[in-house]
């Protein structure tokens, strides 16, 4: 196993997995607490449509992924804010529409393009040095903004109206969160793929949710679980020659079910039921 670590591609993959795992799991805390789980799913499919259009037209795929991702979250946020439509309905419509566009763009390519499918299913073992730099730069940007606005983000996740009433610019912070979700999805496309990135946002935060009642601890647990499962998933992928995306996500899911079983919250509830 140590031999593998000597390879450049393996070092790049592990670094990319650690960054993406950490980033997804930290933003996942706010996504889970604010009830934006479906937004993550919709954005990843929208970003994939952007990638497909990029390859079809010969334009930079990541740039178009960002445009599609941002357009989706901003439209969704705007529609919710106006009270025109429930968030899950608007994101459901955009989710399926952008997926249809993605399939259409692939169909229009006429020839099979393995790179596009790499964005759909994830291929962390083929991350290039340039892609690693992009992932690194965007991760620093997103994590920096999350840290800078952490207290406001926690507050709007708790109660947006109360936050606004207390003097927090809640509306702007909500749109910042949506923007950071879209950027995180785009950063993670190459590593875990459009279909599975949503799991990386949701599962580590949901696992941590089982283990603690504190916001600070929740974030730290989620980041640790996200980084460890991503790095371990890549190692499993390389050792057993299985696709990296599913390896990471299935490992994270296993940890999630163990945490549900061992959850102090669940054990306390069981104790209360038995003592009554």
């Amino acid at each position, binding site marked *: 196993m140590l031999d593998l670590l000597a390879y450049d591609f393996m070092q790049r993959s592990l670094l990319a997995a650690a960054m993406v795992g950490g980033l997804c799991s930290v933003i996942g805390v706010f996504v889970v*607490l604010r009830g934006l789980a479906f937004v993550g799913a919709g954005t990843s499919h929208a970003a994939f449509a952007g990638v497909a259009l990029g390859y079809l037209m010969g334009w930079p795929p990541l740039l178009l992924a960002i445009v599609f991702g941002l357009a989706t979250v901003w439209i969704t946020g705007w529609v919710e804010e106006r009270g025109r439509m429930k968030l899950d309905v608007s994101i459901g419509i955009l989710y399926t529409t952008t997926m249809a566009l993605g399939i259409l763009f692939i169909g229009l390519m006429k020839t099979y393009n393995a790179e596009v499918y790499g964005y759909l299913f994830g291929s962390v073992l083929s991350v290039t040095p340039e892609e690693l730099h992009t992932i690194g730069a965007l991760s620093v940007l997103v994590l920096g903004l999350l840290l*800078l*606005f952490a*207290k*406001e983000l*926690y*507050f709007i*996740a*708790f*109660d947006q*109206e*109360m*936050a*606004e*009433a*207390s*003097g*927090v*610019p809640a509306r702007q912070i909500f749109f910042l969160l949506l923007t950071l979700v879209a950027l995180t999805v785009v950063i993670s496309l190459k590593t875990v793929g459009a279909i599975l990135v949503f799991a990386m946002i949701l599962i580590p935060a949901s696992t941590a*949710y089982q283990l*603690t*009642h*504190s*916001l*600070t601890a*929740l974030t730290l647990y989620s980041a640790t679980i996200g980084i460890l499962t991503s790095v371990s998933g890549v190692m499993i992928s390389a050792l057993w020659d299985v696709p990296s995306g599913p390896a990471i996500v299935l490992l994270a899911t296993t940890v999630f079910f163990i945490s549900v079983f061992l959850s102090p919250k669940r054990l306390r509830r069981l104790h209360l039921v038995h003592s009554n």
Partner: protein
Amino acid sequence: MSDPREPIIRFDHASFGFPGLIALKDISLAIYEGEFVGVIGPNGSGKTTLCRAVLGLLPPIEGHLRIFDCACDELRCHHRAKIGYLPQKGVVDRNFPVTVLETVMMGRYGALGLFKRPGRKDHDIALEALVQVGMESHKDNALGQLSGGQQQRVFIARALAQQPKVLILDEPTTGLDITTQHNVIELVQHLHDELKLTVLLITHDINMIRSRVDRLVLLKTRLFAAAPPAEVLKPEILHQVYGKELVIAEKDLVIVEDYHHHH
């Protein structure tokens, strides 16, 4: 009769809602610093709308609303931080993974402004707010593990951590048992007396507050009365709003037909 004091909140022929769906119409009302005001009225009468307006979340579609001598759409974050708010029960997810102290610390965030981390001073203010509501021994407990009454106390502490001038409580006793309801109202009265806060208390429980408030504001889309309780709780005024004949019987307010039914 004109009041020599300057109002802290002033509605001037203000209407709220959307064209075609007016929640509050033509409200003219001044609330003065240090007043304890009870806001009553039937369901859908616009009580929560009034509350959201005073929070600066809902500008009037007609007329004017001034809070701290600012038009409400000019209200800046540091003004809003001066208004502590306890929302209706059920609005906030009570199982949110947060400790009592973390919840109260959120009250400091608006006053701190962007880019600033809460420091020792904010921590001390939050702890002091917990002492004021008698919940300091629960500071490290999970919010979701507390009883309904304890959670209300924590939310009041969160509002106090803003070091507000005005405290708005939207039906703070709903869903609580009678003893806990009494304790929460006692706490609000105590905070009003001790901290000289201006309090706006929205409630359906007229009996619980009528001996405590300076004025009662009676709403049903329009403002029917804003006067001391004895002047508002008159059968002819209450009948206009509640559509039933209501009288003050001995100490309690009862619906006459129910009173006859039971006696």
